C-alpha cells in the first residue's frame, strides 16, 4: 500500500454528471487489481476532512482511471481538477474480484455508477472467458458503457433497452446462460445487489458483489465500515474484507 501524489493527466465527462479521471500513479498502478479501491484526498486543505473511496476503473501502464459521479462536495471538488493538479491517493485497498475460477461466462451486472470497477475487470479476465455485460441506469443518459463489451441495457424509464431494473432483465435472460457455468460480478445500488443476491443464492450461481459503506480510513484502523456476515452474528469490514464479497457471505 502506498500514499502517492498523483498528477492529473486528463479528466473527461462520460455521461452527464459522470467523470473519468486519469492520473499518473505508477506505484499503485503496478499493484492494484480489479475490484480494489483507492482512498483519495480531494483537496489540499484539511477540508473536506476524510478521503473519498473510489474503485479502480482501469489501469493503463503507469496511469490509473477512476470513474465517478458528482454526489456531494467531495466529488464536486474532484470533478473540478485540472490537468497538472496533484491528488493524494492511498491504495491499493481491499479485496478485489476473484475471476480466475473454472467458469465459462463472466456476467457483469452494473447499476448506474456501479459500472466503475468493470472496465478493468473486463480487461483483466482470462482470454478464454466469455463476457456479457448488463448495464442499468435511470434513463438513457445515465447508461455508462465505457470499457464494456457485449452489452444488454435496461433503464428505469424505458428510454433505452428494457424498462425496469437491470436485475429484472438479467433474470429474464438468465435462461440463455443456464447450461453454461457462469460467474457473476455485480456492483450498484443496494436494492439491486439485494435482488441479485436472492436470485443467485436461490439458483446457486456464483456471484461476487462490490459493496459500499461510509469509510473513514479505508484500511482497517477505524472499524467504521462493518457489514453483517451471512449469519448475522458478526461483521466483516468492507474496506479490508471487501469491498468485493461472495454474495453468500454477507447480509445486505
Amino acid at each position: 500500500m502506498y500514499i502517492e501524489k498523483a498528477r492529473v493527466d486528463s479528466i473527461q465527462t462520460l455521461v452527464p454528471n459522470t467523470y473519468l479521471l486519469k492520473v499518473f500513479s505508477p506505484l499503485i498502478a503496478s499493484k492494484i487489481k480489479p475490484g480494489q479501491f483507492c482512498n483519495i484526498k480531494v483537496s489540499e486543505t484539511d477540508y473536506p476532512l476524510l478521503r473519498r473511496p473510489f474503485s479502480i476503473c482501469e489501469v493503463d501502464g503507469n496511469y490509473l482511471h477512476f470513474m465517478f459521479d458528482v454526489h456531494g462536495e467531495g466529488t464536486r471538488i474532484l470533478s473540478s481538477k485540472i490537468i497538472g493538479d496533484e491528488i493524494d491517493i492511498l491504495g491499493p485497498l481491499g479485496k478485489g474480484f476473484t475471476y480466475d475460477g473454472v467458469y465459462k461466462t463472466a456476467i457483469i451486472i452494473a447499476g448506474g455508477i456501479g459500472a466503475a470497477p468493470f472496465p478493468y475487470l473486463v480487461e483483466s479476465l482470462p482470454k478464454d472467458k466469455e463476457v456479457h455485460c448488463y448495464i442499468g441506469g435511470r434513463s438513457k443518459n445515465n447508461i455508462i458503457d465505457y470499457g464494456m463489451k457485449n452489452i444488454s441495457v435496461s433503464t428505469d424509464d424505458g428510454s433505452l433497452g428494457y424498462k425496469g431494473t437491470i436485475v429484472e432483465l438479467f433474470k429474464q435472460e438468465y435462461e440463455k446462460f443456464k447450461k453454461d457455468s457462469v460467474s457473476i460480478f455485480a456492483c450498484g445500488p443496494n436494492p439491486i445487489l439485494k435482488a441479485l443476491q436472492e436470485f443467485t443464492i436461490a439458483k446457486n450461481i456464483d456471484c461476487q458483489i462490490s459493496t459500499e459503506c461510509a469509510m473513514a480510513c479505508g484500511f482497517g484502523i477505524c472499524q467504521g465500515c462493518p457489514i453483517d456476515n451471512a449469519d448475522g452474528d458478526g461483521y466483516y469490514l468492507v474496506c479490508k474484507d471487501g469491498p468485493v464479497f461472495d454474495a453468500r457471505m454477507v447480509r445486505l
Partner: protein
Amino acid sequence: MSFVDQSIQIGSLYLKNPVLLASGTVGYGNEIAQFTDMSKLGGIVTKSLSLKPRKGNPPQRIVETPSGMLNAIGLANVGVEVFIKEKIPFLKELDTTIICNIAASSIDEYVECTKILNSVDIIQAFEINVSCPNVKEGGLIFGNDLNSVGRITEKVRAVTKKTLIIKLSPNVSRIADFAKVVKDEGGDAVSAINTLVGTAIDIWTRKPKIKNVTGGLSGPAIKPVALAKVLEIKRKVDIPIIGIGGIMNWKDAIEFMIAGASAIQIGTVNFINPNAGVEIVEGIETYCEKCSIGKLSDIVGSYQI
C-alpha cells in the same frame, strides 16, 4: 542529527517523544505499520479492550461533519484474551511504547482487565477509558460522574503499579474537577479529551445518520474545545496531561503542549494521513531548533497569560 531532547516522563512512563497514536484510531498497530515507522513515535494506545470481545454497533458507524467526524463504533474489540494471544506478539516487534486502553461496563470489569493485562511485560501503561459516548453501559455514565471516576481510579490503582492514565470526558462543565479526583485517587495522568457527543440527521429519511443515534465528534472541529479543557486542567490541577483532540500537524501538537499537555495523541488524522505521527515528531524538532529549545518538556504549560 538532532540536538533536541523530545523525551517526556509521565509517572514512571518514559516516552522518547510526546507523540502517541490515540486509542481506536490505530487498531492494534498492524495495519498502520504499513504506512509509517512506528519506532519513531512516542508510543501507541491500543483500541479500547474489554474483558470479552465486543461486536460493536451496527452500521452506519461514521459520518463526516464540517472539519470533523462522528463515530459510534461501540468499542468493537477482540477482548483481553485474544488481544494477549494474537495482538501482543506483533506489538512486541514495534520498538515503541505500548499503552493499553481499557473500557468496561462495570468497575469490576475495569479491575479485572487491568489485572490480567498487568502481567504482560510490554504494556507500559494503562489508559482507562471512562468516557466513550457510544455504549449504553459504562461510558459516559461513568465519565460524567465525579464519584464513579474516583472509584474507578482508586480500584484500578490498587491492582497495578504501571502508569495509570484516566481518559476524561469533555462533556462536563468543569473537567478540572475530574482531573483533581484522578490525582487524589492516585492516578498518574489524565488524557483529555475523548469525543464530544454529537449527531446528524438525514433530512430526507429523517433518520439519524448514525445507527446509534448519537456519536462522538472528533477532528479539527473540536480542537479549540480540547485545548480549553487542557488549559483548564493545567491551571487548576497539578497532574500530567495528555492532550487529544483535532491535532492534524506539529503546530497543533505544540499548541497543546504550550497549553499544558506533557504528551499528545492523534486520532482522526491517522485515517487521512497514517504517517502524520512521524511528520509531527519531525515538525516539533524543527520548531524547537528554530526557537532554540533544547528540551521539549520545557514548553509544557509555558503559556503567557
